[in-house]
């Protein structure tokens, strides 16, 4: 084992903080959309079950969102602390995109989150509903900007290089934002966020269905409705996600063939290539050991033709190759989980048709086990795309080694240790709180976040907008 360099530690630290961070916004993107739908259904149908579910998930949303905010602040400064040379060169392009994200999305989310969480009694249903939708739209806008940034780093265009300083000069902002991989990444990430939440909601529903069945009790309506909605979502989105993943794969083949070669474990470029199902990529010997292959399938998947030519890592100088030993596996975990999600969706449809969706224990256990699968797949996908674009930060133009700050090893090691300790304490506690909340079943007349702690209710009490008696039961639906 060799000692870590400052560059590797800077990468580790960034990967660690961003991997933690990304879980919360993904959860927020999916959950905000779910909440917007639930509130819409409640306003349209007037059915209590939708309000109960809305309030149940709203409380969970509040926790997840706050963790996303605080872990996100770190990200906006870490580009400078860890990657100052990158920031100075690419800042003219990526900085404005980030600033637009803050101005169009972060403020929108933060500004209306308070109203969404605590405002039902103060502003009434319609404005509360508007706030929920604005928060949800904010999460989607935010995702669009950050994916435009990331995609530009993967498939840069619309820039010139300043010969004196080596800085990127923006020449065409539309080409920068709508760079070649942006639409595919946006679609793939958006669907991933929806899947993450569908899987979590499905698992929570399944957990309570199983628990109720064990007690011999019949489950409450909110439990059944949430499980049913999640299973519909899985059936609809899982196949779409596989299509979106395929489209992104084709796009990557066009713009980042080395990444494809590495994640496929292919060393020699060829036509009629097999698909390696499993093996151990060996970077030193330039081969994939113990490969289990299916003939022709590689060409078929990547080019949609049996005769298609696919790249091999030997096409690229050794210094330009991404590390296949990581992304070969991360890619397979992601795809494997995607297939399980598809299976879950299909099984859900089948059992619904048979009329035993809520009673089939093995399906409920499967859904429960799949609860975290969305997040695992999401992280594996990001590892694949980020490790796969190494050794560059701006693909083909700026190397990672030329991006790092001149921070000494002891400094970055100290902060790394601090981040690890703090993140495990804080976000560990947060996840424990979330799990405890999900472990409590939603019930009739579910209270909202404002009524959760007695004193919070007080916070929403005074003021001229206050109407007549509000609050429970019914959780403040009347004014």
């Amino acid at each position, binding site marked *: 084992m060799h000692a870590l360099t400052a560059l590797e530690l800077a990468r580790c630290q960034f990967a660690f903080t961003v991997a933690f961070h990304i879980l919360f916004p993904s959860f927020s993107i999916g959950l905000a959309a779910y909440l917007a739908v639930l509130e819409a259904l409640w306003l349209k149908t007037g059915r209590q079950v939708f309000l109960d579910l809305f309030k149940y998930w709203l409380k969970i949303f509040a*926790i997840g969102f706050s963790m996303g905010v*605080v872990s996100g602040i770190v990200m906006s400064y870490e580009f400078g602390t860890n990657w100052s040379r990158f920031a100075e060169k690419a800042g003219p392009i990526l900085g404005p995109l980030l600033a637009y994200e803050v101005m169009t999305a972060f403020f929108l989310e933060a*500004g209306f989150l*308070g109203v969404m969480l605590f405002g039902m009694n103060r502003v009434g249903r319609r404005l509360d509903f508007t706030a929920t939708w604005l928060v949800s739209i904010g999460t989607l806008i935010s995702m669009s900007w950050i994916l435009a940034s990331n995609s530009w780093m993967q498939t840069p265009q619309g820039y010139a290089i300043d010969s004196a300083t080596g*800085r990127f000069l923006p020449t065409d902002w539309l080409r920068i934002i709508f760079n070649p991989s942006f639409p595919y990444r946006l679609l793939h990430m958006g669907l991933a966020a929806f899947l993450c939440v569908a899987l979590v909601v499905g698992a929570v529903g399944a957990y309570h269905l199983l628990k109720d069945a064990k007690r011999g009790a019949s489950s409450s309506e909110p439990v059944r409705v949430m499980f049913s909605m999640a299973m519909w979502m899985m059936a609809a989105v899982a196949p779409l996600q596989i299509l979106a993943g395929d489209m992104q794969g084709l796009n990557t083949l066009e713009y980042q063939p080395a990444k494809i070669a590495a994640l496929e474990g292919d060393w020699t470029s060829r036509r009629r290539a097999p698909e390696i199902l499993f093996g151990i990529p060996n970077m030193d010997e330039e081969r994939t050991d113990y490969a289990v292959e299916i003939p022709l399938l590689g060409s078929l998947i990547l080019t949609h033709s049996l005769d298609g030519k696919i790249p091999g890592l030997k096409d690229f100088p050794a210094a330009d190759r991404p590390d296949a030993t990581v992304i070969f596996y991360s890619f397979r975990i992601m795809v494997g989980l995607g297939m399980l999600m598809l299976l879950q969706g299909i099984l859900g449809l089948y059992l619904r048709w048979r009329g035993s969706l809520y009673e089939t224990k093995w399906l409920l256990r499967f859904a429960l086990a799949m609860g975290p699968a969305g997040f695992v797949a999401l992280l594996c996908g990001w590892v694949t795309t980020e490790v796969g674009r190494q050794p560059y930060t701006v693909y083909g133009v700026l190397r990672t080694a030329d991006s790092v700050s001149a921070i000494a090893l002891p400094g970055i090691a100290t902060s790394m240790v601090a981040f690890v300790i703090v993140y495990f304490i*804080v976000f560990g506690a947060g996840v424990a709180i979330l799990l405890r909340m999900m472990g409590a079943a939603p019930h009739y007349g579910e209270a909202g976040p404002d009524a959760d*702690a007695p004193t919070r209710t*007080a916070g929403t009490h*005074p003021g001229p907008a206050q109407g007549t008696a509000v609050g429970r039961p019914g959780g403040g639906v009347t004014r």
Partner: protein
Amino acid sequence: MMSLPHLLPIVWACIAAFTVLAYIVLDGFDLGLGILFAVEKEAHARDVLVNTIAPVWDGNETWLVLGGACLYGVFPIAYGTLLPALYAPIIAMLLGLIFRGVAFEFRFKAHSQRQRALWDLSFFAGSTVAAAMQGIILGALVQGIKVRNDQYAGGWFDWLTAFSMFCGGAVVIGYALLGACWLVWRTDGELQARARRYAKPLALITIAMIIAVSLWTPELQRQYLRHWYAWPRILYVAPVPILVAGLVVVFWRSILNPAVHLTPLLCSLGWFFLCFTGLGISIWPWIVPPSVNIWQASSPPSSQLFLLAGALVLIPIVLAYTGYAYWVFRGKINNETHYH
């Protein structure tokens, strides 16, 4: 006629300054409430403290993110040199903000007294550390940062000096004052009376520290001295200390008058505004004193123009709905539990 590459950085320096000021104004009292946990130990009172800002704190902190993003996009050389130079206090500030940010939600979800005490501690310590680090960052910036070839060229602990530590202490006290004045405005009864009591010594110490920092600053860079005392410049910078003194009189009268609720907060915000203006007078046109000015730090005009177009439309909209959110949650907060 001034050219675009000359004018844009000036406009952006103003917007960036506004962003930082908005952050200080909005998150100052917010962090101050956390600092006041040191003296407000009773559980219900603490709940009220947190509830006065629960619906708006996310938005307040977002100005800090905007500040970072603007620096990144508009003055990338400043972003790329300041952050490595201030690495340790920045990381400590971020970790402090994490502890305090999650405590908002977690402390209400704690299911034992012990757990709740821990999240209360996390709220207090996180707020205090974040405030102190912001002061240290400010002090380290003012005292000067070594830059060579657009990269930070100083050592690991350059930021750590008596001056920066003093600024750290000053910001903690100043934010606590903002927090106390915020409570005078937003609460009533005994809590409000206690907040008035806290505000008095806090205001005295804050003013003393403002005077100390003002006298200390010109010692740090020769340039600063000229910015203040050169003739005829002294004529138009003189109002700054005079206004600070004037606000002391207004503050003192209002804090002693139980019928006045909002004025103490406005006065202390006024002090922050004036200190910030003073800081601007000292370091202008540097952005990384004493070597990088706003033009040297700038990104190309195409970047600044692209972002300016959005900022001019979006920042007013943001301010409008932020105002709306504050308006929705206006009024006194107390812990009479009406619904239970």
